[in-house]
C-alpha cells in the first residue's frame, strides 16, 4: 500500500466489502450486461464530438476568457511551487504535506476535478504554462514551438509509460512517501517532458504527459465538454466517451490505470504481502513484477477479447484494441473511485491540515493547522462499501454500453450479438475481479 512508516499517507485502509454486497454487485453486473446485449439499440446512437447542447453564452465566454485561463495557469503554478517548496525545503517529517498532496489531493483529486470541470490539468500543468511563456517570448505559437513535428505513431504511449512509472512510484518504490523519493521522481518527470515539449512543441503534452492524458480521459465522462465546432456544451457522458478517438497507446493507458489499481488492491492482501516479503528477489523487484503482471493480465485479456470480437467483423486486427479502448475508461475510473475515494476524503483532509504548517514551525498559514480530520465517513464502513461497489458497477455499465454502441457500429448486423460476447465476458471478468479484490483484500 502506499504508505511508509511514520509517514502519514494511508494510515488507515478500507475494510473488505461484505460478501453479500460483492455477490449482489456481480449479479447486477451480469444482469445489466445481458440486458444491454439483448435489448439495447441496433444502430449506433452516440454522436461523439458532435453531441451536446451549448452552454449559455455568458458561461461559455467566462470559461473561455483568457483571464480565466491565465488564472487557472497561475493557480497550477502556485500549487506546484508550494508542493515543491514543501518537498525540497521542508523537513521530511510525517507532517510534511508533500506525500498527501501528491498521492491524495493531486492524483485522486484529479478525478472529481476532471469529471466536473473537464481536462483541467491541461490548464494547471506547469510544464505547459512554462512552455507557453517561452513560446510567447520567442514569438511563436506553442504548438509550433518545437524542433520537429510529433510522429503519428506516438499517441498515448508516453502517457502510458508515465502512468506506469507514477503508479510504480505510488505502489512499489521504497520509501515512496518520503520527500527525497518524490522530488527525484518529479524532477526526472519534469526533465523528460521539458525535452519532449522542446522537441515536439506543446502537442507532445496533449497525449504524452501522463497526467494530462489521465485528466482528459476521465474528462470524457464529464457532462461538460467541447464540441467539434469549438463550442462548450452540456452532453451525455456517453457521447463524450464516444468522442474519444482511437489512438496508439490509448488502450495501453487504460490498461495501466486498471491494472495498477488492481495491483494496489492486491498488494494489501496478506497473501501477497507474505509472498513479496519472503521473496528471494527482494521486495521492490517482486512488487514491480506484480505491478507489471497486473497490467499485463488486464492488457492481455483486453487484446484477446477484442481480437475474438473482431473476428465477426472486418476491421483489420491491429486496429481492434484501439476501436474499443474508450470503453475501458469508465471501468478504470470506477476502479479508481472505489479504491481511492476514502483516501481522498480522509487523507485529503489531513493534508489540508498539514499544508498550514509545512515547515513544522507551529505556523498556521491557512488557518487549518488546528483542525482535526473528520472521520465520520470511516465510521460507516457499510456506506464506504456501497460507494465502492456502486462505482465499480457504474463503470462496468458505462463500459458495456459504450462497447455495445461501438460494436453495432463496427460489426455487421448478423454478427452484432455474437461479436460482442467476448467483450462482455471481458468486462464481467474485470468487474467480478474488481469486486473480488475488494472483498478478499
Amino acid at each position, binding site marked *: *500500500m502506499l*504508505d*511508509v*512508516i*511514520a509517514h502519514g499517507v494511508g*494510515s*488507515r*485502509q*478500507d*475494510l*473488505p466489502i*461484505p*460478501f*453479500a*454486497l460483492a*455477490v*449482489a*454487485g456481480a*449479479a*447486477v453486473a451480469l*444482469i*445489466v450486461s445481458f*440486458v444491454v446485449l439483448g*435489448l*439495447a*439499440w441496433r444502430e449506433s*446512437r452516440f454522436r461523439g464530438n458532435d453531441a451536446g447542447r451549448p452552454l449559455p453564452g455568458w458561461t461559455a465566454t467566462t470559461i473561455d476568457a483568457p483571464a480565466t485561463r491565465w488564472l487557472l495557469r497561475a493557480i497550477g503554478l502556485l500549487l506546484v511551487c508550494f508542493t515543491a517548496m514543501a518537498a525540497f525545503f521542508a523537513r521530511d517529517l510525517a507532517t510534511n504535506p508533500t506525500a498527501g498532496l501528491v498521492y491524495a489531493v493531486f492524483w485522486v483529486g484529479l478525478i472529481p476535478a476532471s469529471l466536473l470541470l473537464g481536462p483541467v490539468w491541461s490548464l494547471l500543468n506547469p510544464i505547459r504554462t512554462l512552455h507557453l511563456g517561452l513560446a510567447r517570448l520567442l514569438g511563436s505559437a506553442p504548438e509550433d514551438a518545437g524542433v520537429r513535428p510529433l510522429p503519428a505513431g506516438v499517441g498515448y504511449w508516453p502517457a502510458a509509460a508515465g502512468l506506469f512509472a507514477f503508479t510504480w512510484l505510488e505502489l512499489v518504490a*521504497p*520509501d515512496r512517501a518520503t520527500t527525497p523519493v518524490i522530488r527525484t521522481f518529479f524532477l526526472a518527470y519534469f526533465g523528460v517532458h521539458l525535452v519532449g515539449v522542446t522537441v515536439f512543441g506543446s502537442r507532445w503534452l496533449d497525449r504524452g504527459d501522463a497526467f494530462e492524458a489521465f485528466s482528459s480521459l476521465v474528462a470524457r465522462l464529464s457532462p461538460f465538454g467541447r464540441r467539434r465546432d469549438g463550442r462548450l456544451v452540456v452532453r451525455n457522458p456517453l457521447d463524450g466517451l464516444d468522442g474519444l478517438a482511437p489512438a496508439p497507446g490509448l488502450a495501453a493507458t487504460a490498461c495501466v490505470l486498471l491494472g495498477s489499481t488492481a495491483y494496489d488492491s492486491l498488494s*494489501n492482501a*496478506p*497473501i501477497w*504481502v*507474505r509472498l513479496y*516479503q*519472503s521473496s528471494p528477489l527482494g*521486495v521492490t523487484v517482486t512488487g514491480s513484477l506484480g505491478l507489471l503482471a497486473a497490467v499485463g493480465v488486464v492488457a492481455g485479456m483486453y487484446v484477446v477479447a477484442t481480437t475474438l470480437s473482431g473476428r465477426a467483423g472486418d476491421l483489420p486486427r491491429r486496429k481492434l484494441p484501439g476501436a474499443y479502448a474508450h470503453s475501458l475508461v469508465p471501468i478504470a475510473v470506477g476502479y479508481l473511485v472505489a479504491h481511492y475515494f476514502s483516501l481522498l476524503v480522509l487523507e485529503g483532509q489531513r493534508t489540508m491540515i498539514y499544508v498550514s504548517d509545512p515547515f513544522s514551525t507551529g505556523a498556521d498559514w491557512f488557518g487549518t493547522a488546528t483542525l482535526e480530520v473528520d*472521520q465520520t465517513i*470511516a*465510521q460507516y*464502513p*457499510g456506506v464506504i*462499501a*456501497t460507494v465502492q*461497489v*456502486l462505482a465499480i*458497477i457504474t463503470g462496468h455499465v458505462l463500459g458495456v454500453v459504450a462497447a455495445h454502441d461501438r460494436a453495432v457500429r463496427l460489426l455487421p448486423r448478423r454478427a452484432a450479438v455474437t461479436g460482442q460476447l467476448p467483450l462482455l465476458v471481458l468486462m464481467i471478468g474485470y468487474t467480478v475481479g474488481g469486486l473480488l479484490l475488494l*472483498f478478499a483484500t
Partner: protein
Amino acid sequence: MNSARCALLRLTAGMVIATLAVAGCSADPDDDATDPAPSTSTAPETPDGSATTPGGEATTPADDATDNPSPSPSDEEPAPSPVVVEIRVRGGQVSTETDRVPVAVGDTVRIIVRSDVADEIHVHGIEEVLQVEPGQRAVLEFLVPEGTAPGLYEVETHDSALLLLQLELT
C-alpha cells in the same frame, strides 16, 4: 430505440438499484467469516527493558479465544481477555499465525514480538510505537481507543519496512 425497450431498460435499472440498496443496507461487515480472534497462551512475560504502553485494564493470561471472565470485584461485565498476537521476525522474514487480526474499539491488544534485529514497530492509525532489541521478547499492549474509525490498520517495522500484521477494526 422504441419506447417499450426504453421502459424495460428503465425498469431493469430500477430493480438493479433496489437490489444494491437492499444488499448494501443489510450487509454487515461482521457477516462474513473472518478469522476467529487468535490467541496463544503466553505466560505474562516481563518485558525486558523494552517499551510497553500500559494496557487499560487488568487482564488474566488468555488460555483460549473465548471470554474467560476474569474475576473482578465489581458486578459489571468481566474484563474481556486481550487479543494476543505473537510475531517473530528472523532474517527479514515475518512469521505469525494470523496476518489480519480482528479487533474492536475498547479491546486490549497485546503484540509480542521477537526479532533478530533492533527495530521500531509502529501501529498505524492508533499510533503506538514499540522498540525491539535483538533476541529479546518485546510486548506492546494497548487499548483501541474510543472513536477509532473502522478500517485496516497496519503494524509495521520502521527500519526494515516489513508489514507484520493488519488490525481489522470493524
